[in-house]
């Protein structure tokens, strides 16, 4: 069954879009990430204009993350205070990111900046996580204890900087400064790459701040809902590239997928969870790296330049 998309100005298969929404929603619910870095390339591959793809998939992220946040609130797996600080820093970071985006475009190297940032971010974050989880597996097999949970007196020095705050739900008593720095960076990368930044928040909260896995997913989803809502409205106003029909199809597929993902995520062992996320990030990073290195079959590409009157 085909349906015509009014903003993308092309027909798509309804079942295909529903299926894509469900698949990405599943991964999003499972890992507590937005899934934008998976959905955008898929939509572009279908022939949907890149601007429409980036803008519209943010609606799907809002929907699936709302579901996760509501679920997290019910299970008391959301740290409001931590989430609010992440959001506040994220907005400042986004503004910086938008400014850098324009500067790179003026320099004519935006494509390169984006691909290189993708490759470095995903491979660095992915391989750090993979290393951690392999070490975990080993210590477990040798009968040792996994020391992911904090122990008394074991703190990195930057956690003890001034302006310390107590986060009861995350069992944290740390300085606000490293958390704000993290959220600044996420907002910056998000605006530059058109992603929610969940895949940076999750490992950072897990490994740097040692927040419990259950709280990490809820809190990161909260941060994603807030930033993506702003992005969605901004895209609609500045680019007029949000396709409502496509958004609704993606949302319907996505919310169901996210439910099953979230349910499965709760039954997943913590080490396996981190291992799978590491593999996913590495795979995406590798895909972008290959695109950069392998000789293209078709070296030419067409882009439609917007005529602004």
């Amino acid at each position, binding site marked *: 069954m*085909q*349906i*015509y998309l*009014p*903003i993308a*100005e*092309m*027909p798509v298969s309804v079942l295909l879009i529903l299926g894509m929404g469900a698949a990405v929603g599943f991964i999003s619910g499972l890992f507590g990430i937005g899934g934008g870095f998976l959905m955008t390339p898929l939509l572009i591959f279908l*022939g949907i204009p890149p601007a429409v793809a980036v803008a519209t998939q943010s*609606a*799907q992220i*809002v*929907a*699936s*993350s*709302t*579901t996760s946040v*509501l*679920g997290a609130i*019910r*299970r008391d797996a959301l740290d409001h205070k931590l989430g609010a600080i992440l959001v506040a820093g994220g907005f400042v970071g986004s503004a910086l990111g938008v400014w850098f985006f324009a500067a790179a475009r003026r320099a004519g190297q935006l*494509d*390169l900046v984006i691909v290189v940032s993708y490759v470095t971010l995903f491979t660095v974050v992915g391989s750090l996580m993979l290393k951690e989880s392999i070490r975990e597996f080993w210590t477990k097999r040798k009968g040792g204890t996994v020391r992911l949970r904090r122990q008394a007196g074991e703190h990195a020095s930057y956690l003890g900087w001034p302006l310390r705050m107590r986060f009861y739900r995350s069992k944290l008593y740390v300085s606000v400064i490293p958390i704000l720095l993290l959220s600044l960076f996420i907002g910056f990368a998000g605006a530059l790459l058109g992603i929610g930044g969940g895949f940076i928040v999750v490992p950072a909260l897990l490994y740097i701040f040692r927040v419990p896995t259950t709280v990490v997913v809820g809190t990161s989803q909260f941060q994603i809902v807030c930033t993506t*809502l702003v992005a*969605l*409205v*901004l*895209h*609609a*106003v500045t680019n*007029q590239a*949000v396709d*409502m*029909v496509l*958004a*609704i199809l993606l*949302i*319907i597929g996505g*919310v*169901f997928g*996210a*439910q099953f993902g979230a349910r499965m995520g709760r039954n997943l062992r913590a080490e396996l969870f981190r291992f799978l996320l590491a593999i996913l990030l590495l795979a995406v990073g590798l895909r972008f790296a290959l695109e*950069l*290195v*392998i*000789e*293209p079959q*078709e*070296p*030419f*590409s*067409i*882009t*439609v*330049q*917007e*005529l602004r009157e």
Partner: protein
Amino acid sequence: MRTLWLLLITLASISSAPAETLITSLSNHRVLINSNYTGTSIAVFGAIERDAQTVARATGYDVVVTVRGPRQFLVVRERERLGPVWINQEQQKFPQAPAYLSVLTSRSIDEITSVQLRQRQQIGLRAIINSPVFTNERGAGADRDFREALYRLKAQEGLYLEDERGVTFLTPDIFRASIPLPATAPPGEYNVEVTLFADTVILASTITHFELVKTGFEEQVGAVARDWSLLYGLATALIAIFFGWLANMIFRRD
């Protein structure tokens, strides 16, 4: 010498112009896009009228139908090797490229008329794409690869095509052609130029238009997104939150 030759051709076309009249008609001047639109085709009908003085043509008539879609500003980029990576380097701008371009002919374009006439009158897909006004030229034919790439990529999407069996003569004086419009052809104004040839010379030509427009729900969504963008964005956000909440209620079991 060349000027003289051109003059002769011009004189020939002027003197023969009143002899034949071309009448064309499209099956549809307004194609509506609704929610199950998956592309369409438009029929062109034409008749060649001859008056009493018209000389008998030794060869038959030939017809070329050229369809041009709305203009787009296209940029073609080429990825080249830089150290270990392949990145976009050279680019070529096509400021007035038609989003859709098809040339339907009654037989092979090479047999219908000469290369010179094709280039001058922009008859045939190659002549249009290789014409000097299509893009700014570079030295040593460096723009050639970019023109070829544009053609190749557009042809893959079914947006640029040339069909040498696209025009069929029903009788020696009446012909029809079918313009295939893929679903990805954008809404807008389309020009249909029908040119009549006999013995490699242009006898007559007509230009008609058709419009590809969104209707009903599709049109309203487009209009709201354009004119009420803030409201539209907020509405989409609300829909997204509503669906998220709904799913949470439906799946509430634990």
